[in-house]
C-alpha cells in the first residue's frame, strides 16, 4: 500500500508552492537565526569572561616569549595566513594588554603550571611568574612556599579590607554627617579620630609585604601585596576548581562595585539603581494607570470624545522615549525641580538639589512613559469582564464603588499585573530618557543609606543600560572592558526576558481562565 500513500501526499501538494514560499520561509528562519546569534553571542561572551581559561606560554620563532590567553583569530590583512590575538595583561610593563601574533611566527605553545595571574587594583591583570614573597619581617620565601604563603595572606587581606570598609561605612560616615549637621564638637572629633586610628592600624597591618614578579619576557617588578585582589594559577587548576572560580567570578560581578573606570569589577550599584528606579516607577505608574483605565472604561461617558482619548493614549505608547525624556528634563527637572530648589533648598544654591536629574525625576519620567502600557492592558482586562458579572453585583444592591472593588477589579487583577510587568520590562531597558533626567556614569553615593530620610530621591543613580552605553563608548580601553559589557548586557537581557516571560505566562493564564468563564 506504500504507493498509495505517496499518491495522497502528492495530491495534497499538486504542484510546488513556487519560489516565494521558500523565500518567505527563509525570512522567518533568518530572523530566528539572527535572534539566536545575538543571544548566543551575549551568552558566550558574557559568561565566558568569568572562566579562568588556561594561560599559554608562547615562544616565537625569534625567541621572544609571551604569556596570555588566546582571544580570537583573524586572517592577516595581506591574506598570507592568520594571526592570533592574546590578552597578555601587564599594562604597567608593556603599556598594552593585547598582542597580535602571526601563527606562522609561533614556534611553540606550552601551558606551564606555575604561570601566575594576578588581579590588581590599579594595573589590571599581571601574567607571569612569582619569584618570591618578601614579608615585612622575616625571611624571603621562594618557589612553592611563596605561592602557598601568598594564598594564605590573600585570605587574611580580604578579611581586613572588609573590616576597613565596614568601619568606613558604619562608623565614619555617620560621624561626618553629624559633623556637617551640628558643627564641630569635641565628642565627634574624638570619635572620628579614634576610628581613623583604627583604620590606620588595619592599613598598617595590610601592607609591608610585597611580591617579586617576573614576566615571561624577563622583566622584573615589585608589587605591594596590598594592591593584589586575587591570585590564580589557572593551568594548575582542575575543571572543578575552574568552575568554582567561575561561580565566584559571576557572584563578584553581581555583588561588587566597579573598579578602574568601569572597565573591571562588578555592577552591583548599577543593578541596585536599576531595580530601585524601576520599583519607584511601578509604585507611581500602577495606581495612576489603573485609575485612568477605570475612569476611561467604567466612569467616562462612552462617546466620541472618550474614543478619541483612548486612541490618543494608545498612540502615546508609540511616541519615542527620548521625547518623554525631553518632557522630564523640561518640566520635572528645570520646571518643578528648579522651583523646589528656590523654595526649599536656597541655602545650597547655585548648586542644584532637585533642579538636576535624579532618582525621583527619572522614575516619574519613566512612569509617564509606561503609563499608556498599563492603561491599555488594564482597559483590555476590564473590557474582557462579562457585563453580567457587573449586573450580578449591582442586582445584589452593590453601589458602583462596591461593584468595582469587590468584583471587577479582582477579576481584572491578572491584566493589571501583566500591564505593570510589561511596563517594568520596558522601563528596565530604556536608557535614552534617563540620559536626560538623572542617570550617572559613576554615582558616589547609593540613593539608599542609613542617613535620614534613608531614600534620597534627589541623588543620581547608576543604571545597567547606561552602564553599557557609557563603558562601550566613553571608556578609555573599550577592548579591555568589552567582556564586562557583554556580561552586563546579558544580565540586562535576562532580567527583561524573565519579566516578559512572566507577562506572557500571566496573559495566557488570564485568557484560559476567561475562556472557561465565557463558555456558559
Amino acid at each position, binding site marked *: 500500500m506504500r504507493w498509495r500513500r505517496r499518491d495522497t501526499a*502528492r495530491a495534497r501538494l499538486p504542484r510546488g508552492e513556487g519560489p516565494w514560499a521558500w523565500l518567505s*520561509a527563509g525570512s*522567518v528562519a533568518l530572523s530566528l537565526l539572527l535572534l*539566536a546569534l545575538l543571544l548566543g553571542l551575549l551568552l558566550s561572551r558574557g559568561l565566558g569572561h568569568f572562566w579562568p581559561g588556561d594561560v599559554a606560554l608562547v615562544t616565537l620563532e625569534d625567541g621572544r616569549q609571551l604569556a596570555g590567553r588566546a582571544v580570537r583569530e583573524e586572517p592577516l590583512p595581506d591574506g598570507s595566513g592568520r594571526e592570533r590575538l592574546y590578552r597578555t595583561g601587564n599594562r604597567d610593563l608593556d603599556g598594552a594588554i593585547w598582542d597580535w601574533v602571526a601563527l606562522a611566527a609561533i614556534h611553540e605553545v606550552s601551558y606551564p603550571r606555575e604561570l601566575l595571574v594576578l588581579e590588581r587594583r590599579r594595573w589590571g591583570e599581571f601574567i607571569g611568574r612569582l619569584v618570591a614573597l618578601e614579608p615585612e619581617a622575616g625571611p624571603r620565601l621562594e618557589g612553592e612556599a611563596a605561592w602557598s604563603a601568598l594564598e594564605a595572606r590573600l585570605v587574611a587581606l580580604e578579611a581586613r579590607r572588609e573590616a576597613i570598609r565596614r568601619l568606613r561605612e558604619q562608623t565614619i560616615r555617620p560621624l561626618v554627617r553629624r559633623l556637617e549637621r551640628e558643627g564641630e564638637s569635641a565628642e565627634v572629633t574624638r570619635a572620628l579620630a579614634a576610628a581613623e586610628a583604627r583604620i590606620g592600624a588595619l592599613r598598617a597591618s595590610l601592607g609591608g609585604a610585597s611580591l617579586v614578579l617576573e614576566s615571561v619576557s624577563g622583566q622584573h617588578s615589585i608589587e605591594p601585596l596590598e594592591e593584589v585582589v586575587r591570585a590564580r594559577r589557572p593551568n594548575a587548576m582542575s575543571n572543578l576548581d575552574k568552575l568554582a572560580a567561575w561561580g565566584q567570578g559571576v557572584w563578584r560581578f553581581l555583588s561588587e562595585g566597579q573598579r578602574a573606570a568601569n572597565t573591571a569589577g562588578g555592577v552591583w550599584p548599577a543593578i541596585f539603581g536599576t531595580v530601585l528606579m524601576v520599583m519607584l516607577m511601578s509604585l507611581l505608574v500602577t495606581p495612576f494607570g489603573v485609575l485612568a483605565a477605570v475612569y476611561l472604561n467604567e*466612569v467616562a461617558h462612552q462617546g466620541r470624545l472618550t474614543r478619541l482619548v483612548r486612541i490618543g493614549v494608545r*498612540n502615546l505608547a508609540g511616541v519615542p522615549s527620548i521625547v518623554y525624556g525631553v*518632557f522630564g528634563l523640561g518640566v520635572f527637572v528645570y520646571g518643578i525641580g528648579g522651583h523646589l530648589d528656590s523654595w526649599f533648598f536656597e541655602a545650597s544654591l547655585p548648586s542644584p538639589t532637585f533642579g538636576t536629574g535624579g532618582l525621583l525625576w527619572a522614575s516619574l519620567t519613566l512612569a509617564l512613559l509606561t503609563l499608556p502600557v498599563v492603561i491599555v492592558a488594564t482597559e483590555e482586562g476590564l473590557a474582557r469582564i462579562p457585563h453580567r458579572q457587573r449586573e450580578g453585583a449591582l442586582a445584589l444592591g452593590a453601589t458602583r*464603588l462596591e461593584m468595582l472593588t469587590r468584583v471587577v477589579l479582582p477579576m481584572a487583577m491578572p491584566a493589571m499585573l501583566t500591564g505593570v510587568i510589561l511596563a517594568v520590562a520596558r522601563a528596565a531597558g530604556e536608557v535614552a530618557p534617563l540620559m536626560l533626567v538623572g542617570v550617572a556614569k559613576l554615582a558616589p553615593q547609593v540613593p539608599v543609606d542609613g542617613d535620614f530620610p534613608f531614600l534620597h530621591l534627589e541623588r543620581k543613580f547608576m543604571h545597567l543600560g547606561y552602564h553599557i552605553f557609557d563603558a562601550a563608548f566613553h571608556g578609555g580601553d573599550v577592548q579591555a572592558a568589552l567582556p564586562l559589557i557583554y556580561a552586563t548586557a546579558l544580565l540586562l537581557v535576562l532580567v527583561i526576558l524573565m519579566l516578559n516571560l512572566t507577562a506572557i505566562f500571566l496573559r495566557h493564564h488570564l485568557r484560559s481562565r476567561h475562556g472557561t468563564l465565557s463558555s456558559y
Partner: protein
Amino acid sequence: MMPTPPTSTMRQRLRQGRDRLATALITAGGIGVIAAVMGIAVFLVVEVVPLFWPAEPPRIRLEALWLPQDVAGLDAPAYRWQPTLADDGGPLFSLPPLVWGTLEAAAWSLVIAVPLALGAAAHSALFMSRRLRARLRPTLELMEALPGVVIGFVAGLALAPWLERHLALALALLLLVPPGLLLAGGLWRQLPARLQRRLPLGWAALWLMPWLVLTWGLAQWLGPLLESQWFAGDLRAWLEVTLGLDYASRNAVIVGMAMGFAVVPSIYALAEDALSGVPRSLAEGAQALGATRWQTLWRVMLPAASPGVLSAVMIGAGRAVGETMIVLMASGNTALMTANPLDGLRSMAASIAIELPEAAPGGTHYRLLLLAALLLFAFTFLVNTLAEVVRTRLRRRYRRLGGPS
C-alpha cells in the same frame, strides 16, 4: 422564617456617599492622568513657540534653519549642524542634516525589516504549522523586548568591526542567501514523499536554519574569491577608489541592520494579524478555484489586508524614526548629508540625547532641540493615529465580509 439582614439608613447613606466621593475622585484622577500624558504635546509647543515669536530679537535667522548657510572656510553655502563649535562664525544650526540622518536611518532599517517581516508574516499566515506559529509569536515578542542599548552595543562594537573586516563575506551572503533558499525549495521537491513528510513546509522555518548556516559556510569560501576576482582583492579599497564611497566603520547600513532587527517583530505582529484576519471563506474560495496558496495570498488576501499591512509598516517606521540608543551607538553621530549608505549619520533623537543636557535652558540651542522633539512627537503620533484608523476600518471590513474564523 426569613432572617432578613439589617438595613440601617446610616450605613446606607455612608455607602452612597462613599460611592459618590469615589466616582468624583476617579473622574478627577483619570482626567488628571490623561491630561498629564497629553501635556507632553502642550509643553513642547509652549517651549518651541518663542523660537518663532521671540520676545527679544532673535540671534539667528529662522529661514537659515532650512537653507544652506555660509560656512567659514567654504566657498558655497552648506548645511551644517555645529551647535557647540563657536569659532569665528558662531554656532551653526541647520536642521536638514539631522532630518536627513533620521530619515536615512529609518529608511535603511525599513529596507532591511520590511522584506523580513512581511515574508515572515506571509509565511506564518499561509504555510506555517499551527503549533510552530503559536510558539513563534511569543518568541518574536521577546525579540521586540530586547533593549535598544543592547542591540546598539552589539551593532556598534561587534557587528560594525566585523563587517568592516568581512565586507566581501557579507556581500557573498547577500548574493547567496536568496538563491540558496530557492535551491532548498527545488531540492525539497525532489525528495521522496517520506522525507518530505519528515520535513514539512509548515516547519520549514526551523529546518531551514541549518541550511542557512551551510550557506554561510559557502559564502565564507566564496567571499575571498569574489574579492580577488572582481574587486582587486580589497572590496573596501575598491569602493573608495572606483565608486568614491567612503567607508565609515559605523554607518547607515549598520544602523539599518540593527534597527531593522529591532522593528521586525512589531511589523511582523501587526502584518500577521491583518493577514490571518482575512475571512477564511475568501481564501478558501480562491483555493477551491485551483490557486496555489501563494497566488491566493497575492490575489485575494493581500488586496483585502493591504491597509493592515501598510499600517504595520507605518508603525515600524514610527519606531525607527524615534529609536535613540541604536542610532546613537551604531551610527558614529556625524551630521553629514550624503547619499552614501556607508557613511555615518546623526539623527534627531541622538542629537537630543547627546546635546540637550548641555544646552542652556531657554537658549536657542535648547529650543531647537525641543523643536526636534516636537517634530518626532508629531510624526510618530500622526503615523500611529493613521495606522490605528486604518486598522479599525479594516476590522470593520472583515466583520462585514464574514468575520475572522
